[in-house]
């Protein structure tokens, strides 16, 4: 009997998947969880954990290490709706046994869990190597980006935050009680340090690397 843990914050899908697995004679749903926190308390005795990549309290790959600590033979299948290869790459690098996009059929998911439990890898050796290279490249790009953001001065951070609020150079100058050409100077320095060519690119850079959050409009 393959004991399965399902970790997915879309409850209705998780419950439907659980129902489906329970109809299979060789599966038992050991537990279900809607978050990393819930899942961490349910890893005991799990053979295969089917985990959503994007959970409300973190990245699903974080459970790989936790599962191995409780059950060294436990395996992880990541499900994701992302089509970004670096998401797949990060999961492979973390040591998951397989990654599937949620656009596959439900039968493929069930079959993948069987294959993983049987010791198969869903990716070929070449694919794994490619994913590892991709993950390493992404890590390097992230490191470079964090370094660039770290070089911004406190004043430049203020300017960047005001840019994220939608202010133009004159409005930024007014808010900071500085001259407009001084504000433009700061902006020019920001673009230079981040290696981008426009205010929009600077904003996207900061958001992409977690330096700034854009709040939803009310």
């Amino acid at each position: 009997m393959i004991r399965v843990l399902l970790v997915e914050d879309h409850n209705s899908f998780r419950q439907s998947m659980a129902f489906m697995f329970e109809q299979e004679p060789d599966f038992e749903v050991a537990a279900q969880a809607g978050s990393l926190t819930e899942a961490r308390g349910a890893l005991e005795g799990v053979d295969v954990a089917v985990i959503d990549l994007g959970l409300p309290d973190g990245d699903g790959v974080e459970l790989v290490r936790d599962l191995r600590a409780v059950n060294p033979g436990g395996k992880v299948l990541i499900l994701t709706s992302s089509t970004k290869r670096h998401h797949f790459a990060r999961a492979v690098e973390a040591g998951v046994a397989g990654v599937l996009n949620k656009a596959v059929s439900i039968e493929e998911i069930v079959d993948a869990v069987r294959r993983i439990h049987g010791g198969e890898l869903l990716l070929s050796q070449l694919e794994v190597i490619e994913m590892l290279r991709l993950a390493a490249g992404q890590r390097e790009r992230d490191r470079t980006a964090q370094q660039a953001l770290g070089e911004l001065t406190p004043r430049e951070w203020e300017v960047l935050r005001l840019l994220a609020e939608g202010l133009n150079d004159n409005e930024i100058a007014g808010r900071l009680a500085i001259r407009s050409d001084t504000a433009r100077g700061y902006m020019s320095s920001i673009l230079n340090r981040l290696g981008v060519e426009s205010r929009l690119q600077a904003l996207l850079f900061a958001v992409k690397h977690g330096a700034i959050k854009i709040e939803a409009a009310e």
Partner: protein
Amino acid sequence: MYNWSRNTNKCGVWPDIYRPILGITSIRGWQVCMETIRVLVANEPRSYREAFSFAFRKLRPHISVVTIEPYELDGEVLRLRPDLVLCSELTETVRTCSPSWVLLYPHGDSRAVVSIAGSRTTTTDIQLGDLLSVIDQLQYLARP
């Protein structure tokens, strides 16, 4: 077998002439459903709609469940006149031609919007049991 409940102007009208012929004089009589309700499952992604369809067929074997690709939604709503549509994108056709619908996880959001005969509720934590309750409600409303 006839379903008398599909009577919106845009999507097909049962002419009033049939009512006296068939002895149906009240709105409630007009809404008698002589067949099981039909649920059209067209949400994204594929694994979700297949999982829901599987669960509905097993747990509510008396209903008709039709699973389609999202791009087929408008055409199939007009063709099949489902009692309930599950979708990830609310089209004008669904809004106007389907008596009830559930908008599930649009753009991967956690939110769902349930509309039963025009009455809407929004939730961020919809469960499988909630979807089955919607089906049960529609089955109850469709009873003779």
